[in-house]
Every structure is written in structure tokens, then in C-alpha cells.
């Protein structure tokens, strides 16, 4: 298995993606606080390693289904920051022409079949995308991202079971950030999440979701299995969201200490340390990754701000496909 932090090109790519996700969401957080962005936001700050490492294990032709916490998935799969920012700023040039916003952000061209406002809504959809690959005889793989909370929804169970009985080329990636809103995942289930998946007869592994290499290795294995016709697998990546669930969260269900402990395990810092230890990246490379991400996000905000607003006159358009 490739040592991601030992390979200068891969390391730079990974670090660039993680920083773009982090800076994008920090910018969103700030725009929201300044009243320039409306709606609600679910930030994935602290979880960047999971989408980054997962999408690194995919080909551009592979697809993903995403969640309400989907900025990271979208960026890691290759979406353009300016069109994402335009979407969140309610612009006509946004990926969904201002209709989707944060919760429905998607770039279908890069294989993102859609973020989803319905918990577990994307799970059976991923099974269906896998079925399509099977029926059409392609070797495409679909990754379904979801949180720990989603594993309690009926849709999750039905989707995973279909993928299992039909041996579909799907990888179920659980970003276990340990809370479904305020419900700790340990209180929502008497089994581990991996045991749930095992119950459907599919291989499952649990990895440190703040460790790029561990996520990458597990997903790479699972993708290989899916691509070779051996069916779905489940990868649980244990991680943590630093921010509240959404903009209305008072964080009453977890302690400051707990949040602080996880901030000390920042996946970006961990990866930077690993990559410099392996000699893949020098301090200057790391600074450059960070600076490029900052610039990219800044110009995305500028481009989005300058773009035309979404137009109410076009509302009736695209209710039905033509």
C-alpha cells in the first residue's frame, strides 16, 4: 500500500485538499457570522481526513453520495471552489443555481451524485448507482458517505442489504464523528457500527478517521474488492466535528474538554507531522499548501460575490426535466 505521507506528490495533493476544505468552511463560517450567507450550515471542520483520503482512493469516473455535512466530500471529489461558494451565496453561477445551497451541494460532473438533507437518504441511492454500474457493465465504484446517526435509519439498513445481496460495487464510508446531532452514537446502538454492517454479511473495518493513511488503506482495499466484483464493504472512520451540529447548536451535550482533546488530534496537523517526518514535505511545502488554499478560497469568495444573483424569473424552470 502506498505511503501517502511518504510520497511528495500525493502528500502535497492530500494536504492541499485538506486545507482547501478547512479554509472553505472557515470562510463559510465567517460569511455566515457576518450575515452574508443565509440558511443553515453543517461544518465538517476536524473531519477533513475522511473525504480527502476516501476520494484519493477513487478514480474520477467513480461516484459518491454525500450528506448534509457535504462540503468536504464535494471538494475532495474535485468540485470548483468558486462554484461551490457561488451556490452558498445564492448565485446563479452556483452548482445548483442557488436552489440547493449548502445542504444539497453537488458537482455531478465530478461524480458527486448529491448531498442530501435527509439522513441516510443517500445510502440506497448509492446502492442504486452501484446497480447501474453492474447493469451497464462498467467498473465504476460508488462511495456512500454518511454519519454514525444514519446507521439507525431504515433507509440505511435497506440500502446496505440490497448492496450486500446483489454484491454491488459500493463502499459504505461512515464518518463516525460520534454524535447524531446531540445523540452519542454509543447511546443510539447496543452494537458497534461495524457489527451492524457485519450483520448484513459484508466486510467491515474500523479505522482512525483522523489518520489519512488508515482511511486511505481501508478504502483502497474496499474499492479494489468492489471493482473486482466482490461486493460492498463498510469502513468506519472515527473522527470528530469541532463545531456545533449546525448554526443553532449550543453544544450542551458535550464538554469543552472533549472538544479540546479532539482539536489536539487535528487531522491536518497530524498529516503535516507525518509528511515532514517522512521527508516528503519540507516546512516550505507545507506553508505553500496552506497559502495556496487560502488564496483559492479568497478568490472563490471574490468570484462568487461578483456573480449575478439567482433569478426568481427562472424558478419554474427545472421542476420537470425536458
Amino acid at each position, binding site marked *: 500500500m502506498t505511503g501517502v505521507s511518504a510520497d511528495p506528490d500525493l502528500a502535497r495533493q492530500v494536504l492541499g485538499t485538506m486545507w482547501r476544505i478547512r479554509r472553505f468552511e472557515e470562510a463559510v463560517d465567517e460569511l455566515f457570522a457576518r450575515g452574508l450567507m443565509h440558511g*443553515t450550515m453543517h461544518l465538517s471542520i476536524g473531519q477533513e481526513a475522511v473525504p480527502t483520503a476516501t476520494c484519493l482512493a477513487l478514480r474520477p469516473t467513480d461516484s459518491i453520495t454525500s450528506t448534509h455535512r457535504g462540503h468536504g466530500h464535494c471538494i475532495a471529489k474535485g468540485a470548483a471552489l468558486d462554484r461551490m461558494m457561488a451556490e452558498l451565496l*445564492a448565485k446563479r453561477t452556483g452548482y445548483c443555481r442557488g436552489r440547493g445551497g449548502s*445542504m444539497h451541494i453537488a458537482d455531478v460532473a465530478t461524480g458527486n451524485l448529491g448531498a442530501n438533507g435527509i439522513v441516510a437518504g443517500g445510502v440506497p441511492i448509492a446502492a442504486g448507482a452501484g446497480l447501474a454500474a453492474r447493469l451497464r457493465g462498467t467498473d465504476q465504484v460508488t462511495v456512500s458517505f454518511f454519519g454514525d446517526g444514519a446507521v439507525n435509519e431504515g433507509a440505511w439498513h435497506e440500502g446496505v442489504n440490497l448492496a450486500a445481496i446483489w454484491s454491488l460495487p459500493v463502499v459504505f464510508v461512515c464518518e463516525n464523528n460520534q454524535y447524531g*446531532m446531540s445523540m452519542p452514537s454509543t447511546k443510539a446502538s447496543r452494537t458497534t457500527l461495524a457489527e451492524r454492517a457485519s450483520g448484513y454479511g459484508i466486510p467491515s473495518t474500523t479505522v482512525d478517521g483522523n489518520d489519512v493513511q488508515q482511511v486511505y488503506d481501508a478504502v483502497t482495499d474496499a474499492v479494489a474488492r468492489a471493482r473486482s466484483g466482490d461486493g460492498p464493504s463498510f469502513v468506519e472512520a472515527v473522527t470528530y466535528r469541532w463545531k456545533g451540529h449546525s448554526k443553532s447548536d449550543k453544544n450542551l451535550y458535550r464538554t469543552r474538554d472533549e472538544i479540546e482533546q479532539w482539536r489536539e488530534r487535528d487531522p491536518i496537523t497530524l498529516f503535516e507531522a507525518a509528511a515532514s517526518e517522512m521527508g516528503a514535505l519540507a516546512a516550505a511545502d507545507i506553508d505553500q499548501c496552506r497559502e495556496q488554499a487560502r488564496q483559492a478560497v479568497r478568490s472563490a469568495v471574490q468570484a462568487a460575490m461578483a456573480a449575478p444573483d439567482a433569478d426568481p424569473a427562472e424558478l419554474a424552470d427545472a421542476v420537470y426535466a425536458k
Partner: protein
Amino acid sequence: MRSDLTYAEAVREALAEALAADERVFLLGEDIGVYGGAFGVTGDLVHRFGPERVRDTPIAELGIVGAAVGAALAGMRPVVEIQFSDFTAQAMDQIVNQAAKIHFMLGGEASVPLVLRAPTGSGTGAAAQHSQSLEAWFAHVPGLKVVMPTTPADAKGLLLAAIDDPNPVIVLEHKLLYRTNGPVPAGAGRVPLGTAAVRRRGADLTIVATGVMVSRALDAADQLAAAGVAATVIDPRTLTPLDADPILASVIETGRLLLVQEAPRTCGYVAELAALVAESRAFGYLRAPIRRLCGLDAPIPYAPQLETACVPQVPEIVTAGGELVKEW
């Protein structure tokens, strides 16, 4: 009389009174405990009544409603919070095929006294899967009662009546109303299900509005009054059972009917009201065609300017009301 309550506080007060008064009452839903509810409605109730009676659930709407159906059948009075009314879609089998049917199917031998509260409607930038107005889905199902409170006093009084009711009752609380204020007299009691409220009287025009559109209709009526048009504004409050008499009586008086809802037009609830009037003794008194102002037949978009354009706003109600009176 004490100071005003917000709509959210009024709902909480009803829940607290019901929990205190009746051991059979308990609450269940996602994040209603220490989080206090996604819209803050349950607040500190878990500290006052404990986690057994203010019960946090996993994210599993079908399971939550199904468990409530079972508990209700077995003699309890569950009050479910579904975090957004859109997620009733997950629980539709338990709502439609179980809760609504059991009393009838079992020949009246069993009942399902269950209340399902759900924040509803658009206006918060939450986009298509968190902004729907689905009341017509439920009003179409015999065996369910559907309530849409619009004032804090009604939010409290109708919820208390819903909890008393031996049937499954869906209470749709509009998100934009949670922070609105209004008088709720201490000790204010129940508002019987199936009683409409005439919010304002005028002889030229009858406006019937549901949900958040009631306050927009009232604002519009103020503007119409300034232009010399006197409107009656009727708030049905419960969609099923409907209290049709005040609507028919008012149409007989005014001869003009404007129906306003946030939900999309096609097969919406107010289409039922239009049909009802057309089939009634009031029909012959109409001086103008019945007019509907509804949401666009489109999902609710994210962008604020798109979202606003999707649902009726005050100026459109003023225009439609003015036209009905001046052109007919």
C-alpha cells in the same frame, strides 16, 4: 393576565402542563432532551420531567412513530416531535397505514391517542427537503386530524386539545411563528379541535388563510382597509375536522372568496375549501370567481430571493384581494 409568550414557549407550556397533569403523557423525538429540540421548543423539559418522559431517540422516524403508536394502543399518551415535517415521509407507513387505520380496522375497539408535532414551512433558507408544507398529505387520510396553530394562545390550546383527543393528531407548527409573541392568559385552556377563528371582520371580501399565511392575510387586510376594502380573515386552525360554517357564512355576506396557502397549488388544501364553497348554499352568493393564492408548484429553493418568490407575500394578497373587489 401576564406578559406575552412566544409561540415556542406556548407549546412548551402546553407540554409541561400535560406532563404534569397526566402520567400517561410522555414525549419522544430526536434531540428533544438536553439539546432542547432543534427549534428550542422542548427547552428544559428534560430537567423538569426526566429522560424517561422526555425521551431522546436515535434518528429513526419510522421507529419513533411506530413506537408511539404501540404505546398509545397500550394506554399511553405519546407526543412525538418530528424534527422537520419533511421527515414524516420516513414515518409515513406508521402514520398512514397504522395510526390512522387501527381504530377503524379494529371496529372501534382500540384507539391511537397520539400527537405528532412537526415544524413546517419555508422561510429559513433550509431548501427543498426541510421547507415543505405537507398538510394536504395528512388531511387526505381519514382517521387523522390535522392542526395548524397560528397564534401562541392557539399553539397552546390546540396542543392541549390534541393531547386529550383519542385520535392521532398531526400538529403542524410553522417555523417562522416560533419566535412570534402573543397573549396567552395564565390558565388559558383548550381550544377545541374543529373550531375556526374569525380573526377580523369586513363586509367586502372573505380571506381564508392557513398557517403563516394568516398573519400575512391580516397585514394585507390592514392595507386593504386603508384602501377602503373591508376584509374578513378566517383561520380554520384545524384542517380536519374543518369548521366550515364561519367560512360559508362569511362568503354569503361578502360574495368574494380569496384562499391563501403556502403549499403548492395543485391538490392543495385550499382546493378543498374552494370545492366545499362551490358545492354549498354559499355558491349562489358568489359575485366573483373563487381565487386561490398558493405556493408555486415547485420545490422550495435555497436562495432567499428565490424562496420568497415561491410563496405568497403580503403585496400579492393585497393585489388579489383588491382585484376581487374592484373587478367584480
